[in-house]
């Protein structure tokens, strides 16, 4: 099975006259950590929203495991085992941390009308959700209201929630942004362990140093187009990237 897990061909998304994503093609290979880089407004998050079904593409197609997924609704795409986080965190604020993950872990039930009526209080999913919380280091906060957590914990919660859904592919949208150095190190280790479990990870990252250290391959977007693709060292050496990204604003990070 050497077919890529996710194939994106000629993907475009236009908002009126704005070409947020403009004819982008790339593959995600099974078991890799792929980084999506680019300056602000390069179209990274729009790409995520296209893959996860929040937007419908203007043109182009997305295939997941050989199946066309462009145009499917977000909850259907989640049902395929694709989990995602949000750059601007979106917790279920008035639910507890545990209930946040449980709501995601219930994905196996949501499509079967009889099953949605069973209680989650004593379910196997509850234990799985607790172990996911342990994995991201939030098990002590399981009964807190999610809306009261600081940003670092919210980012972990988002990862736990996405993991509850992600059987094959995890999409992480700037999971490090706004975090302190030691928190970044912890989450880096977490992402490596997720990959070690056999999941494929696509992540958007602004911080060049983190992306270079963590990712197997990088894709650089600028103005909605793909600027470069390759191993971190190759991308780093690319003239176009240095000019468009590092030269303008990333020099401090890249050093």
């Amino acid at each position, binding site marked *: 099975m050497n077919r890529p897990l996710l194939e994106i061909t000629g993907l475009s998304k236009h908002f009126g006259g704005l070409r947020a994503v403009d004819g982008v093609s790339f593959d995600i290979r099974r078991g890799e950590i792929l980084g999506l880089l680019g300056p602000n407004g390069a179209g990274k998050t729009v790409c995520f929203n296209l893959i*996860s*079904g*929040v937007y419908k593409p203007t043109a182009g197609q997305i295939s997941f495991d050989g199946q066309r997924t462009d145009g499917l*609704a*977000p*909850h259907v795409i*989640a*049902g395929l085992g694709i*989990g*995602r986080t*949000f750059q601007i965190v*979106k*917790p*279920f*604020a*008035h*639910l507890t941390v545990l*209930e946040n993950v*449980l*709501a*995601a872990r*219930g*994905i196996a*039930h*949501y*499509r079967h009308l009889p*099953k*949605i*009526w*069973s*209680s*989650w*209080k004593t379910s196997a999913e509850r234990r799985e959700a607790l172990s996911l919380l342990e994995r991201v280091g939030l098990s002590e906060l399981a*009964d807190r209201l999610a809306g009261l957590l600081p940003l670092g914990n919210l980012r972990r919660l988002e990862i736990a*929630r*996405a993991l*509850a*859904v992600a059987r094959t592919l995890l999409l992480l949208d700037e999971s490090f942004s706004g975090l302190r150095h030691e928190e970044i190190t912890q989450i880096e280790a977490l992402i490596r362990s997720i990959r070690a479990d056999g999941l494929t990870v696509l992540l958007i990252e602004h911080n060049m140093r983190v992306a270079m250290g963590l990712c197997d391959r990088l894709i650089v977007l600028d103005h909605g187009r793909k600027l470069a693709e390759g191993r971190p060292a190759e991308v780093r050496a690319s003239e176009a990237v240095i000019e468009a990204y590092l030269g303008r604003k990333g020099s401090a990070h890249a050093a």
Partner: protein
Amino acid sequence: MSGYLITLGTIIAINAIVACGLNVIVGFAGQISLGHAAFFGIGAYTAALLATQAGLSFWAALPCVLGMSAFIGLLLGVPSLRVREDFLAITTIGINFIVEAIFNNFEFFGGALGIGGIPRVGMFGLKLRGTEFLVLCLFFLVVVMVVCWWLTRCWAGLACFALREEETAAASVGISPVRFKLLAFVLGTCMAGLGGALYAHFMRFIAASDFAFPLSVSLLSMVVVGGMGTLWGPILGACIIGVLPEVFRPLVDYRILFYTMLLLLMIRFQPGGLLGENSAARRVLAKMRPGGRS
């Protein structure tokens, strides 16, 4: 118990059943509805017509009433729930006005005269009246509350809560927004229909104006005053909104003003409701109960 208190209690119990249904829609699933009285009316008219035209007993008609409420809830919910939040508020107001106009203008529904001669509910060969009927209403209130309680611990309820909090995030974890909003909407309209059937057999005469828009506002006030999304909020709200006009009765002319001003002050200074998070009542309770989750 005096007849007056029994009547008041029965009305409050029926309102509490309907408010619980509204709470499922507004409090649990986060979908505003300002047309809940329409579904209350649909239940009442279905029950009244089945009793007077088809000669069915309350019990034989009940499944039809619930089915009809669910069906119309589904029919009106599919287009309404696709629109944005603000549209939904106005759409549901519109549904209320249109349903009332239909009841009022079609001969089939008794027109402006309404429907009279609705029999009392029979049970074990008895005709339920007074306290017995109140007990029947309380029984149904308990049934509705058990359903609501179960919702707080089953997957369907969790999905609704998640949708209420963050629709995009809920969809990203596999929760179909349309399906679960509809589910909450239909559950809510069924409870309203049940309340309507009880109301028809209690009043024994119904008219379109019983289910006009102001009732929808009262029902929503009950949910908001009690505490949206809480289990006991709608019951507390139904009691307060039901009892207040009686308490204010000595104020004669000023009582409606007091009542509306109180509602305004309540929503202005305690928008989460009496039993909502961070409410004054909650804080007092938390202080009285050391170690309790505040």
